[in-house]
């Protein structure tokens, strides 16, 4: 007799490894598994880039363009 059950590290069901991470993947899943607050990797990277550009713009504004 074989007993086999799948153990689940309980984090919800979206964005599992086998499927692509959907645009609106379960945020909790991402938080628990990937230690990130973003719904997908692409969102995280793009947000990082946008925030960097905003920082750059503000810095440019106050150190080069306005002064």
């Amino acid at each position, binding site marked *: 007799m074989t007993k086999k059950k799948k153990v689940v590290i309980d984090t919800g069901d979206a964005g599992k490894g086998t499927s692509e991470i959907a645009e609106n993947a379960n945020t909790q899943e991402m938080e628990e598994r990937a230690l990130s*607050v973003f719904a997908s990797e692409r969102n995280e*990277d793009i947000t990082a880039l946008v925030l960097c550009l905003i920082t750059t713009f503000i810095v440019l504004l*106050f150190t080069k363009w306005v002064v």
Partner: protein
Amino acid sequence: MSRTKENIPVFIMGGLLIVYGIIVQTGVLLPLLTYLHVHKSMDLMVTMSFVIGVIALVGAVINSSKEPGNSVFDRFVLQPMGGIVLLLIMAMAIRWYLEPLVIIMSKSLHATLGFDVYKVLNLNYVVLGLLAGVLLTNTYGIPKFAAAGVKCARFVLKMGVIMLGARYSFAELAKLGVYSIWLIGFFVLGTVFLVLWLGNIFKQPKTMTGVLSAGMGVCGVSATVAVAPVVKAKSSEMAYTIGTILSFGIICMFIFPTIGKLVGMNAVQFGAWAGTGILNSAQVAAAALAFNAVDIKTLKVAEIFNITRVLFLPVIVLVLATWFGKESGQKLSFKTVVIDKFPIFILGFLLLFILSSAGLFSPPEHYKGKYIDVSYNKRTEVTPEEWEVLNKAMQAGAFKELNESQMMAVTDLIHQRQIAGNFDERNDKTKFDQVGRARMSELEGVLAAVKAKQVRLSKEVGSAIKHAISQVHKKSKTVVTLTDCMIWFFAFGLIGLGMQITKKAIFQAGGWPLVIGVISGVAKATLSFFIVLWLVKDVVLK
């Protein structure tokens, strides 16, 4: 009501920040801050305390008055607020209080111990931040209110890497890129094969040597995590491998900078060595900043190596997948491994690099040129070693031959550790700037006199003065400010990443992975040390 209760820590932190900002503003703390040698950052302290304090208070009020939602604003701003503020407070406390205190304390222990603790262990704010993070998780644990915010760490670290892109020139990137591709290529493949071979000798299962070889060869835990599903590693193999790699990397992070300083490596050599020899990429950044946190040369080199490793990772995953493909019966295509997993933030790094190369960040009137900035900045200071050379020379009376105004400029350089105007006059920008520039030209006069053999100064003193002058030169205010933002991002990110290093993971080190890992890790570190010393010459960095 219970929501207000949950937000009490955030209220307290915000309130404390504002009170602290007010206290600093009144100048009561000036003696203490001068003693800690951080009084020049007072303006920044006040601004940061007020801005972060107000944001924290507003956030806490909103959080306690409304139901937690699932909107973008909720998820990315309101919920992580507590953790972000906590990390920022830790970063500020470490940078302005803990680091100077550690330095002062280890100097006072110098007499009994015979060496400076902070120098041997490289306890600057980056390493202290990482350690503080590790300590917090493993003792008290990450507080509940901060859990969501701490998860922003890797995101902020990515921002740091993107911002770093602004600091390279084409020539540097090309030169460093060639170094890194050769060194990383050689050592990645070398270590992977060494581990597989050692595994064969010790008769260890292929699944274990598979994960271990990726971890030791490419980028530590990241590679282990990426490769484990591909080679179908057993649970014990993953656990022991991760533990070994994490512990080995942490030890390297402390040992590498000390050895690098002992043998007198330059910034490029150390960056190349750390980038090749240290396993985890966060630890590479920490070691680079530990080697030299005053200017960011080493970090620039090390991060190029880091990025090269990241780009090598998919290749290794593919190679190991082919190696184990027959057994696991799993097919991996180029698309799933390389394209789907391509780190987009590296494109951001390139974008900032292109913007910077296009001259966007240099002052309009001087393209990458003779812009002079004499404002206060920790990073425009001379290095602690140079400061000691100058201070000793002053006490030994080496500057006797200088004229009075040159003497005053040198005295002030030693006093302020950088070329700047007078601290008391910092509010009068024009005067401050004039005094600073005058001091700079006096120091240039000193160098000219040395060159004309009118004044005799030792080579070290000359190079220290030269460095002080170059620190206020050549950097546009934009670049300086952008670099400061970047350093804060790195400090923030590394504290947060420290919080993800649990003792559970560290104590998991052991078994065969420890044996094979130590052999291959030490071999890699030693060999790369000699190859870097032999091959890598100083690249002229701006």
